[in-house]
Structure formats: C-alpha cells, structure tokens
C-alpha cells in the first residue's frame, strides 16, 4: 500500500455514524492536511508578494464561494446575487469600523452577520419559489444592492468609495502582503473547517435532504422554509466575511466590481470545483484565480520573443487570452461536468490500483 498513502485502505469499514462522518477519511489524509497548513505558514519566507497576493485572493474568494456552494451545491437553491453580498460585506465592515470605531477584527464577523441579515431578507422568496424563478428573484437582489452602493453615501461613500483600515491586533498592523497572508490563511482554514463541520450536523444533513428530495424531507419533519432561509443566511454570512477580508486587504472599497459578473464568477467557481463538495470549492477557486494569471504569463512569454513584440500581435493575444478563459470554462462543463473534486477522486482511484487495474 505504499503508493496509496492517502487512500482508504482495504478492510477499513465504519461501524458508527461518528466514524462515517469524519472530516478526513484516513489518518494519513489528516496528517497531510495538518502538514500542508504548517508548511503554508512558512510561505511568506519563500514566496514573493505576487504569489502571496494570489493566495490572499484564493482565500477571500474561496470563503465566499464556499458560502455559495452551501446554498447551491448542498441545499439546491440558487443565487445570482452572491457578488453583491460579497460587496455588502466589504462595505459593511468598512462602515462599522469608521462610523462606530469598532476594531477591525470584530468588524469582520459583524459584517458577516449584517450580510447574513440582508441575505436572509433577499432569500425570503425561496420559501415560495424555486428554480428559475428563484434565480430571477436573487438577480433582483444583485441589482438592488448594487444600486444601493451607488446611492447610499452614508454607507458606501457613493462614488468616492469608502476607506477600510487595515486589521490591527494589539498594535500589530496587518498591512503588508506577508502579514495579511496569515490573516487570509487563518480565515480560510477556519471557515473551511467550519463549513465541513456544518455539513456533519443535523442542519447540514437537513440541507442535503432539502436538495435531494424536498417532499420526503418535509415528510421526515425537516422545515423547508427554515432550512432554505438558513441556507441563504449562511451563504451570505460567508460572502460577507470574504468581502470584509477583501476590503481590509485593499484598504479601500469602491462600488465598482461587485457586479453580476462577479456573481457569475462565483457560480463558475463552484460548478468547476464541484457542486456539493467543500474541497471542490477550493479547487474551483484556485483554478479560476490561476487561469487568467497563467494565460497572462503565456502571453507575456510570447511577447518576450522577437516576433511577439509587435504591438499588433500583443493586442491580438490580449483578446485570445480573454477568449481562452471562456473556452476553458466551456470545455470544463463538457468534459468535466461533475467538477474538479470528482476528477480528483478518479485520479485517486486510478492510483489506488496502479499498476494493476481491475
């Protein structure tokens, strides 16, 4: 079994529910995860600001995307307003900090709860409608909140945007990429473990029941309205936390950027990663963050060559880059409809029986 260190070995049967719902399938996987996080703690000493900023992006987008996956992948609802909730969290945290002088560390979770309240308000139609109708109802949330950012000077600063102080704990300011990296790492690990645990609770199972067969769930005593609404709340809470981290990383929030495209990008992340999979969410986010960078890097490689330096070609490559991102997403949906998480399991299964496949 030397090649299958992270695989579940033969004869490993579960005899209790507790065993069946562990976060990590085997001890080895658990050790790998802990080692990986420990290793990640040393990243700022090895990697430069570019890689760190990509990781920070993965962190705040990942937290928000996990929220969307809880809503879409686990509860079977849909939201096209996730980008706006993300933005609401960003503004709310900055607003709480500047208006009420609450320390930023507390503003971030508070912003999460504020966003949760807003999300539940806009999630209320979910009690009565579903599918495409719900999609349109949440689309309205996107536009209403986006318009609110533009008008509510007291909250978002209107066109001038609003200022977000960096995180400060006991006099230490997290205002560089190196220091903020730790905030991002902590938030990511914390929120993902929380997400994993949530799915192991009664509420988490209720979400899945609502998704899989809402009639049966209702007959079993799961309150549909309660859990649909709760799912919207949790999803927006995650979006709010992600947004707040984004705000305090940039130090400045502008109403530009929290558009419908952002909402769709979040959906793309969870679909590419794998609906209903927590590790898939992270894979999808990493993929979506690295894809434009990898494209950019390949374009700049061509630029370095003598023929590539011509401005006409450079402009052409810019368009190819944008198109390639779209193309990759389409290819993914055709060849990998169940997401990266599914592919990862298949890769694991392949190596499990290597070199003697059944």
């Amino acid at each position, binding site marked *: 079994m030397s090649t299958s260190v992270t695989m579940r070995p033969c004869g490993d049967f579960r005899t209790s529910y507790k065993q069946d719902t562990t976060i990590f399938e085997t001890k080895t996987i658990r050790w790998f995860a802990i080692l990986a996080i420990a290793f990640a703690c040393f990243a700022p000493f090895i990697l430069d600001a570019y890689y760190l900023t990509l990781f920070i992006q993965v962190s705040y987008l990942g937290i928000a995307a996990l929220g969307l996956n809880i809503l879409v992948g686990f509860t079977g609802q849909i939201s096209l307003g996730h980008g706006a909730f993300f933005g609401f969290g960003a503004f709310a945290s900055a607003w709480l900090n500047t208006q009420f002088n609450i320390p930023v560390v507390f503003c971030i979770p508070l912003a999460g709860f504020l966003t949760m309240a807003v999300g539940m308000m806009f999630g209320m139609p979910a009690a009565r409608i579903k599918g495409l109708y719900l999609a349109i109802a949440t689309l309205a949330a996107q536009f209403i909140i986006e318009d609110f950012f533009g008008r509510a000077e007291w909250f978002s600063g209107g066109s001038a945007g609003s200022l977000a102080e960096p995180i400060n704990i006991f006099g230490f300011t997290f205002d560089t990429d190196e220091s903020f990296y730790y905030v991002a790492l902590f938030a990511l690990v914390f929120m993902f473990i929380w997400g994993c645990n949530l799915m192991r609770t009664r509420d988490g199972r209720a979400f899945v029941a609502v998704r899989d067969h809402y009639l049966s769930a209702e007959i079993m005593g799961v309150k549909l309205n309660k859990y649909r609404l709760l799912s919207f709340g949790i999803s927006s809470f995650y979006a709010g936390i992600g947004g707040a981290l984004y705000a305090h990383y940039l130090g400045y929030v502008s109403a530009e950027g929290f558009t419908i495209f952002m909402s769709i990008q979040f959906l793309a992340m969870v679909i590419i990663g794998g609906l209903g999979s927590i590790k898939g969410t992270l894979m999808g986010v990493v993929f979506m963050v690295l894809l434009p960078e*990898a494209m950019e890097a390949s374009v700049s490689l061509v630029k370095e060559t003598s023929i590539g330096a011509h401005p006409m070609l450079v402009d052409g490559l810019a368009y190819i880059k944008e198109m390639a991102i779209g193309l990759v997403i389409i290819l993914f949906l055709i060849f990998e409809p169940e997401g990266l998480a599914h592919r990862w399991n298949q890769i694991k299964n392949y190596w499990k029986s290597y070199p003697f496949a059944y």
Partner: protein
Amino acid sequence: MKLSKLTLATLSAVTMMAANSAAAKEDKVFVGHLADMSGPTAFVGKEYADGVRDAMAYINANGGIKGTGLDFETVDYAYKVPQAIASYKKWKSRKKMVAMQGWGTADTEALISFVARDKIPVYSASYSGHLTDPKGKNPHTKKPAPYNFFYGASYSDSCRALVQWAAKDWKDKGSKGKPKFTHIGANHPFPNAPKAACAEYATELGFDVQPSVVISMKPGDFKAQCLSLKSSGTHYGYIGNLGGSVMSLIKSCNTVGTDIQFMSNIWGGDRKIFEAIGEGVKDYIFPTMTPFWDSNVSGMKLVKNISKMSDSSGTKSRPHHYIRGVCSAYYMKEAMEWAKDNGGITGANVKKGMYATQNWVPKGLEGVCLPATWKDDDHRGIAEVNIYKGNFDKDNVSIEQVDTVSLERRADWLGY
C-alpha cells in the same frame, strides 16, 4: 484524464517559466502599464493605452530617461480588479516598478492604498476629483491619494467648466428664466464622480438642478429616460457615460424629439463616436485637454512621430484620448528625468519631480499638453478646460472650439 493532466502540466510549466524570466536588466527602470483593451471601457481604453505605449516606446527609442531605458509591460486587465491587483503585485515584487501608468476608476481606486504605501506614483486616466487631494485637506476627501496623478481636469472640474459655459450660453442666447440642468448617467462611480460637485456649482450659478436621470452604461433603448428629460424641460444635460451608451442616448432622444443641449464628460465625445452616431449629432458639447489630431500646433509633430511607433505608415488619425495618453507618459518622463538628477529614479523622487516645475509643458509637446502645475497638497494639474462642439452634417463630422474656460483653484473644490 490525459487531457486534464496535460493541461495542468502545461499551465504549471508556463507559470514557472514566467516566474524565472523576470530577471532584472541593466540600467533600466520598470514601468507597469494597465490597459483595458477588451473589457467594458475598451471603446476609449484602447486609444488611450496606445498613446501611453507608443510614447514609452518612443522615449526608449530616443535615448530613454537621460540614458536610462524604460522597461515596460502592458497588461490588458479587461477592467477586472483582481487582475489589476495581481499585475501590480507582480510588478512591485519582481520588477522593482518605479511608476505605473494605470487606466480607469476600477484599478486606480483599488490600488490607492497600495501605491501610497509602496511609494509608487500612478498616472491614470481616472479623473475622479477625490484623487486630487493628496493630504486630505478637504473634509469631503475620504482617502488621501498622495501618489495618484492624472493629466487633465478632474471630472468635477470639467463639469464645472461646462456649467460655466452653459451659463454664458444661456445669457448669450438671451433666454429668460432659470435654465434647467440634469445629470444623465449610470449609477456607478465613474458617471457619479462629478454629480454632487457639479450640481452644487450649477445651483451657485443660478441653474435649476433637476433630479438626475439614470441610463445604463450599456447601450440600450433610452426613450423612456428621454421622455422624462423632455417632460422636465431640461435645457442642459450633462452626460456622464461613454461609448455605446452615449450613442443610444442621442439616438433615443432624437426619436423622442427633445431639445436639450447635451454636454458630455471627456470620454463621451470624440470623432469616432460622432461618426458612429451619424445624423443627429447637433452642437454636441464636450471638453478636451489637448488639441485635435489635425490642428496646427508645433507639438503635434512629436505626437505624429510617436504615433508611427505602432502605425509605421503614419496615416492613422488618432483621437484626443490617444494624445492625452502621450501627455500622461511625457509628464512621467520629465519627472523621472528630474528624479535622475536629484537622487535617482525612485517612486518617491518621481513624485517630487512632479512638483519641481510650475506651469509646465513637456519638451516637444508645446501646444499639445496644457501647462500643468502639481503641488504636494494639490494634485489638480490642469485648471483649464477647452470646450468643443461636434456636429454631423452630410457624412461629415465637424468639430470646432467654442470656448476655453479657466477655473479658479478654489479651496473647497480640492478633492471634490
């Protein structure tokens, strides 16, 4: 599975190679250049970016910054903030960037805090008034932007100049009563930037300011909005949008039959858009910070030589956004030259270089760039606005200058 393995391998290989190819070069300083060539603002973004890029290439081909070459990279970030941040971080940590040429509201505002901390001057084409208050003197200023510069009057100042012109126009026409003024634009930071400031000044000049009319940034049918403009009896309408949206607005309002004097922001008026609209462009007022391509000023010769960097035939006619890009790059060039003589080209020195000269026109661009003055507590470089009028008759676009408005540098207008 083969496919995804291969893709992953290629992607990671490409990333690694890009990481290794960033070796520093001898006697060169790095300037990052963010451009939008394929995103929502590409209509004018591409023209402006061409101006900046050609100017930097021309500077390199002609001796650089007193012998120091400009190592620059243009990234089309498609108006996406995450890509702008990632590019900025890459340049900052790997290429020792000393200055950056940015583009719009989205990237400029996202980077305000970073550039202030990293001491990297940014020359952008985001003319938001709140970028002009580097020390936060005005209580309106939320966030001082000490390292942000732009060549031109702010959106607010341009709008004030247009309002000033409108007040004169109203008097010259001998009209009676209070003229009505309406802000027309999407509910977004860019069109909204001058809204409050301009309405305030319009009221001061005796206008009756109407509630603003919201039209989308994307082209569409704006007849409903034109009808409400008509029913409110607006005389002067300020357009805060650009590109296709302006086109739709003019067409819709012509169908409805409004009689409004349109005045647009700097991005909303150029030859390309008038040609696209065609019949219906009548006395369209817009501001510029530079003369036009065919005007007869001495500095235009240099601009035409610069244009040959990407158009070797020299036949292309460039819009005024291109020329503004050239000016932006040349102010940076001269600030860098000052920095080289005064302690070396670093971000902080380039910033000081911006304050070294008053009423300053880059050498060779006389008559093209307006004399500019930046001060360490006032980043309103330009306080003069040229106002032009565009018309379209019988397949011909005609553009003529109608006025030059000089704005006073009022303290309560700083950063607002």
